[in-house]
C-alpha cells in the first residue's frame, strides 16, 4: 500500500490540470535546507519537532535555573518580582507547550507510521503545517520578551481577573493568548491527522488490538488533544477579546464571574496532564518488554487503562479548584473522581512491574530511564492521591507540595520516559547509538538532580511555602530545602549538558563503530524490521501483520512447552531498504508560508490591525496555493525511480488491508 500517485482524482475521472496557473509546481527534495523546509516526510518532521523541542527545553531550563537561583537563599533580589513573575510563567508555558508536547509529537510523528506499518501519515502536508504552525507560535510567544514589554506574568494558568488589562497592562498576556492559540491550531491539526493515520493507515492485519502500546497511548493522547484544545481556544479567545476589545467576559466589575475562566482552563488543563504523560507511558511500555525479554504483561489491560485514564481525565478538572469556593457537593464529586483515576494508573504501574517479573533485565540507558520513570511517577501519583483528599488539599494547594507533585508526574513520569525513548530509538532515527556510558552518567545525574530538586519541595510545601512567590523570608524554616533544591536544579542542568555532549560526541564516534543494524535491541515492533536509519520510504513492502508483536514473532516462536525458539536470523527477516519504486508524497512550501502568516495576524491584533491584513493575505494565499498546487510534480520524480506498482497495491487491498490511502492532505 502506498500513497497514490494519481493527481487528485475527481469523481468523474476528470483530473486537474497538471500545472494550475502555469506556475505552481511541487518542490523537489534534494537535500539541504530547502529539503527540510519543504518536507512532508513524517520522519523529518518528527526530527524537526525533536530538535525544536530540545531548544525550548534549554530555554525553559534556563528560566528554571533563574527561578532556583533567586530562591536559593531567603530575601534575595537577584531578579525583580516583576521579572520573576514573567519567568515562572514562561517557564511553565515553555515546558508544557513548547517542550513536552512537541517532544511527544516528535515521537508520535516518527513512530506511529512505522509502528502501524504505513509509509507516512494520512495527510503529509497537514503534518508539515502542524510543525510550522507550532514553531511559528512558539517563536511568537517568546518574541514577547523583545517586543511585548516582557513575558506573560500571570502564571501558565493565567487566572482572571489578574490576567486582565488592568492588572497586567503589558503585552505579555496578549502574547500568551495569541501564542497558545497558534500552537493550539498546530496540535489540533496534528491530532486529527494522527487519529486518521491510526484508524485508516494501518498495514494489512494490523488490527487495533495489535497496535503497539505506544501507538495506542499516542492515539488516546490525540483524542484528548482534539477535545481539550477547543476548550482552551475558546477561553483564550475570550481573554483576548477582553483585553483587546473590552468585551468583559471575565471582568467582575462588569458583573462577570472570573470562575468561568478557571473552569474553561482546567477542563482543558487536566486532560493536558494526560496529554503530557500518556506518550511517556507508551514509550516505557515499549522499552520495558524489550529489555525484560518478555511481552508486555496484560496488553489489553494496558490499552484499556490508557483509554480509561483518557475518559476519566475529563471528570476531574475541578480538583484544581477545591478552594475556589465551588460548593461542597461539587468538591466531593471531583474528589471521588480524582481518587478513582488512581485505579487505572495503578494498573499500569503493576503491569510494568509484572513485565519485569521473571524477566531478564538488561539495564541499558533506555531501560534505566524507563524503570526510573516507573519509580518516580509512582511518587508523583501517590502525592496526587493525597491531593484528592479535598480537605487535605485545602492545606496543600498552591504550596510547593503541589510543585513537587506535578514535577514528579511531568518530569519524573514524562520527561524521564521521553529521554529513555530518545536513547531507545536514536539508532533507528540516526543510524548510530548514543554512547551508553555517557548515557548512564546522563541518567544518574538527572535522577539524583531531579530528586534533589523536587523531593525537598514536598517538605517546603508541607511547611507552608506558597507557590509563585518571588522570595521568602528567613525564619520560616524554608532556607535549607530551598538551597538543596537549587543545587539539584544545577545537577539537572549538568545532566542535560551531558546529554547534548553525548549527542555530539556519539555522532563523531559513529564513523568508527559498526552500524547498529535494523534491530539492535532485539525489539518487538515493526519499526525494528527495517534498516537504521529508516529509509525514506519506510517499508520496502508493507508487512502482513499476523499478531501483536508481529516483528518479534518473525524472529522467534514459542514451542509446545512454552519455550522460546529462534526461527530466523534478524538480518534474514528484516527488510533491507533497497526498494526503489516507491512513490512518496511530494514536498511543499505552502505549509511553511501559511504558518508564517499566523504570527503576523497575531502581531496585528496586538500592535496594528493592518498587519492582520498582511498576515491574512499570506495565510489565505497559502491556502489557495496549497489547494491549487498539483498533487504531483508532472515533470519530476522524487529522488526515486517513480514507478508505481499498481497491481501489487491492488493485491494488497484485496488481501484485506486495514488501510486505504486516498491522496494526501
Amino acid at each position, binding site marked *: 500500500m502506498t500513497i497514490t500517485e494519481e493527481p487528485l482524482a475527481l469523481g468523474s475521472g476528470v483530473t486537474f490540470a497538471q500545472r494550475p496557473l502555469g506556475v505552481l509546481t511541487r518542490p523537489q527534495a534534494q537535500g539541504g535546507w530547502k529539503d527540510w523546509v519543504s518536507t512532508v516526510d513524517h520522519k523529518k518532521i518528527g526530527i524537526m519537532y525533536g530538535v525544536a523541542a530540545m531548544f525550548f527545553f534549554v530555554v525553559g531550563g534556563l528560566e528554571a535555573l533563574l527561578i532556583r537561583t533567586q530562591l536559593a537563599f531567603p530575601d534575595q533580589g537577584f531578579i525583580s518580582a516583576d521579572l520573576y513573575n514573567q519567568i515562572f510563567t514562561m517557564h511553565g508555558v515553555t515546558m508544557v507547550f513548547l517542550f513536552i508536547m512537541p517532544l511527544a509529537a516528535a515521537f508520535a510523528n516518527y513512530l506511529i507510521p512505522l509502528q502501524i506499518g504505513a509509509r507516512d501519515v494520512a495527510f503529509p502536508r497537514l503534518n508539515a503545517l502542524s510543525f510550522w504552525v507550532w514553531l511559528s507560535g512558539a517563536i511568537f510567544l517568546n518574541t514577547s520578551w523583545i517586543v511585548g514589554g516582557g513575558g506573560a506574568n500571570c502564571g501558565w494558568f493565567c487566572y482572571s481577573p489578574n490576567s486582565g488589562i*488592568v492588572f497586567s497592562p503589558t503585552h505579555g498576556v496578549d502574547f500568551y493568548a495569541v501564542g497558545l492559540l497558534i500552537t493550539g491550531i498546530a496540535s489540533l491539526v496534528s491530532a486529527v491527522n494522527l487519529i486518521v493515520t491510526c484508524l485508516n493507515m494501518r498495514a494489512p492485519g494490523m488490527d487495533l488490538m495489535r497496535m503497539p502500546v505506544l501507538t495506542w497511548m499516542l492515539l488516546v493522547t490525540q483524542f484528548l488533544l482534539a477535545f481539550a484544545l477547543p476548550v482552551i481556544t475558546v477561553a483564550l479567545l475570550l481573554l483576548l477579546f477582553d483585553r483587546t476589545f473590552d468585551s468583559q467576559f471575565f471582568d467582575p466589575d462588569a458583573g462577570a464571574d472570573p470562575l468561568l475562566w478557571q473552569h474553561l482552563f482546567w477542563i482543558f488543563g487536566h486532560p493536558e496532564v494526560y496529554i503530557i504523560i500518556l506518550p511517556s507511558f507508551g514509550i516505557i511500555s515499549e522499552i520495558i518488554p524489550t529489555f525484560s525479554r518478555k511481552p508486555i504483561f496484560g496488553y489489553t489491560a494496558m490499552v484499556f487503562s490508557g483509554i480509561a485514564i483518557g475518559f476519566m481525565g475529563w471528570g476531574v478538572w475541578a480538583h484544581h479548584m477545591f478552594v475556589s469556593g465551588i460548593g461542597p457537593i461539587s468538591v466531593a464529586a471531583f474528589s471521588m473522581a480524582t481518587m478513582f483515576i488512581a485505579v487505572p494508573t495503578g494498573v499500569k504501574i503493576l503491569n510494568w512491574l509484572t513485565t519485569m517479573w521473571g524477566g531478564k533485565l538488561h539495564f541499558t540507558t533506555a531501560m534505566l530511564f524507563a524503570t526510573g520513570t*516507573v519509580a518516580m511517577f*509512582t511518587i508523583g501519583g501517590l502525592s496526587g492521591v*493525597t491531593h484528592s483528599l479535598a*480537605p487535605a488539599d485545602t492545606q496543600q494547594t498552591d504550596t510547593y507540595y503541589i510543585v513537587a507533585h506535578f514535577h514528579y508526574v511531568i518530569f519524573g513520569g514524562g520527561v524521564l520516559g521521553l529521554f529513555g525513548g530518545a536513547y531507545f530509538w536514536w539508532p533507528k532515527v540516526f543510524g548510530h547509538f548514543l554512547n551508553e556510558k555517557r548515557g548512564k552518567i546522563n541518567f*544518574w545525574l538527572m535522577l539524583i538532580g531531579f530528586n534533589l530538586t523536587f523531593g525537598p519541595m514536598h*517538605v517546603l510545601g508541607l511547611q507552608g511555602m506558597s*507557590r509563585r512567590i518571588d522570595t521568602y523570608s528567613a525564619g520560616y524554616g524554608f532556607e535549607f530545602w530551598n538551597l538543596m533544591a537549587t543545587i539539584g536544579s544545577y545537577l539537572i542542568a549538568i545532566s542535560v549538558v551531558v546529554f547534548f555532549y553525548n549527542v555530539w560526541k556519539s555522532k563523531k564516534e559513529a564513523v568508527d563503530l559498526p552500524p547498529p543494524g535494523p534491530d539492535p535491541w532485539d525489539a518487538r515492533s515493526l519499526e525494528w524490521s527495517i534498516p537504521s536509519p529508516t529509509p525514506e520510504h519506510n517499508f520496502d513492502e508493507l508487512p502482513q501483520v499476523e499478531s501483536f508483536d508481529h516483528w518479534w514473532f518473525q524472529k522467534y516462536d514459542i514451542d509446545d512447552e*512454552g519455550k522460546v525458539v529462534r526461527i530466523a536470523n534478524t538480518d534474514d527477516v528484516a527488510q533491507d531498504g533497497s526498494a526503489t519504486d516507491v512513490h512518496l508524497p511530494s514536498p511543499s512550501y505552502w505549509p511553511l508560508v501559511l504558518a508564517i502568516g499566523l504570527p503576523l495576524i497575531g502581531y496585528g491584533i496586538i500592535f496594528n490591525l493592518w498587519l492582520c491584513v498582511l498576515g491574512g493575505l499570506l495565510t489565505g494565499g497559502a491556502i489557495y496555493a496549497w489547494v491549487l498546487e498539483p498533487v504531483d510534480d508532472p515533470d519530476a520524480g522524487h529522488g526515486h525511480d517513480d514507478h508505481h506498482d499498481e497491481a501489487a497495491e491492488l493485491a494488497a487491498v484485496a488481501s484485506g488491508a486495514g488501510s486505504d490511502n486516498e491522496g494526501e492532505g
Partner: protein
Amino acid sequence: MRSRRNLSGLVVLLGLLLAGCASDAELDTLKPQSETARQIDDLLDPVLAIAGVVLVLVCGAVAWLGWKNRVASYEGDDDFPEQMAHNNTLEILMTGVPAIIMVVVAVMTLTTHLDINSYDDANAMPVVVEGESTNWEPKIVVVGNQWWWEFRYYFSEDVTAESLGSDMKNLPPADIVTSGQIIIPTGQEVELLVTSRDVIHSFWIPALNGKRDARPGFFAPWKIEADNPGVYFGQCTEFCGLSHARMRMQTIAMTSNDFQAWVDQQMQPAAEATGEAVLRGQEAFVTNCSGCHLVDGLNGSEDISAPVQSGAAPNLTHFASRTTFAGGILSTYNDDGTFNRDDVSRWLREPEVVKDNAANDLPDGTLPRGMPNLGLSERTISDLVAYLETLGPRPTDEIIADSEVE
C-alpha cells in the same frame, strides 16, 4: 545493581524529608492548632502512611526485580524467560486491590469533607458593643486587596452574603475595620466570608484551617477557630500579581475577656493628638494621606473610597494597635518593644522599594495598585511617624513578641 543503589538513595532521601518536617516553621501544615485543622491532619496521616507503604512496595519491587533479574547483556543468550503475557487472576487483583484501597480512602475523605463544610449555627457569644450587650454569632468579613487583607466586624446585625451585596468596593459600614491581623476569640468557631476587591487572593492560616480563595463578586464561606490564645501566621496563596510574596496575614486568638477588651478599644475613635510634632503629623496626615486612609474621628467615620484600583486602603484609626503593617511584611514594633520608627519611615519614604507595587508612573487611565511614593520630605515623614505612633493602643508585649518570626 545500579537500580538498587538508586532506590536505597531514595529511601535515605525520604528519611531526610520526614526529618525536615520536624523543624520549626510558622506556616507548618502538619501542626494543627484547631479542631478543623486536626480533622484535616487526621485524614491525611493514614493516607500518607498508606502511600508510604505503596511507595516502598513499588520502588522496592523495581529495585528488587532490577537486582534479581539483571543480566549484563543478551550477547549469545538465546534462553528466554517464561513468556507470561497475561494472567486473569493477577489482573483482577491488580485492579481490585487499588480500587478497594481507594474506596476506603474515599469514605474517610467524604466524612471529613462534609464535617468541615458544616457550620455551627449555635455558637453565638455575648459581646458588649458601645455599652450594649449583643449576641454575636462570630462572623468576620475577609477582604483581599492588592496586597493586603482587610477584616470587617459587624456586631449589630447578622451579616450574610445577601446583606453585604455584590459591590465589594462599597460594603456596608462595619463596626470595626482592621487589616493585616484578624482577631478572634479562642474556642469559638468563627465564620468567615471571604471576598476580594480586585484579583483573586487566598486566605490561609495553616495552623487553623486550609485555605479559601477570595474572589471578587463572591463571598466564599469558610471558618477558623483556635484552641489557645496566640498568633498564627498566614500567607496569601493564590497568585495575585506583583507582590503576591509580600501579602501576609496573622490570626491573633484571644480569650473572650481579652477579645472584649480589644473590641472596646477598637470601637473608640482615634486618640486625640497632643504635642507639637504629633499635631504637625496629624496635619501632614490630613494633607497627604486622608484621600485614601481613614482615621476615625479625624477625617470621617465612613469607609473612604480611595482612588486606587481596589477602591480601598487600610483603615489607620488604630494603626499602632497592630503589630504588622504594609501587608503584614513589616513590624510596627521593634524587638525591644519600642515603636519601629525606622521601618515606618522607610515605608513612607519609598514604599515601592520596600514592597513591589504599581503605584507610580502609571499609564493613562490606570489607578494605582499599592501605596504610592508621595515624595514626602524627611521632616514630614518624621512628623507622620510621630503621629502614627499615637494611633494605639499599644498591643501587649506578648503579642508583639509572638507576631515576630523567630
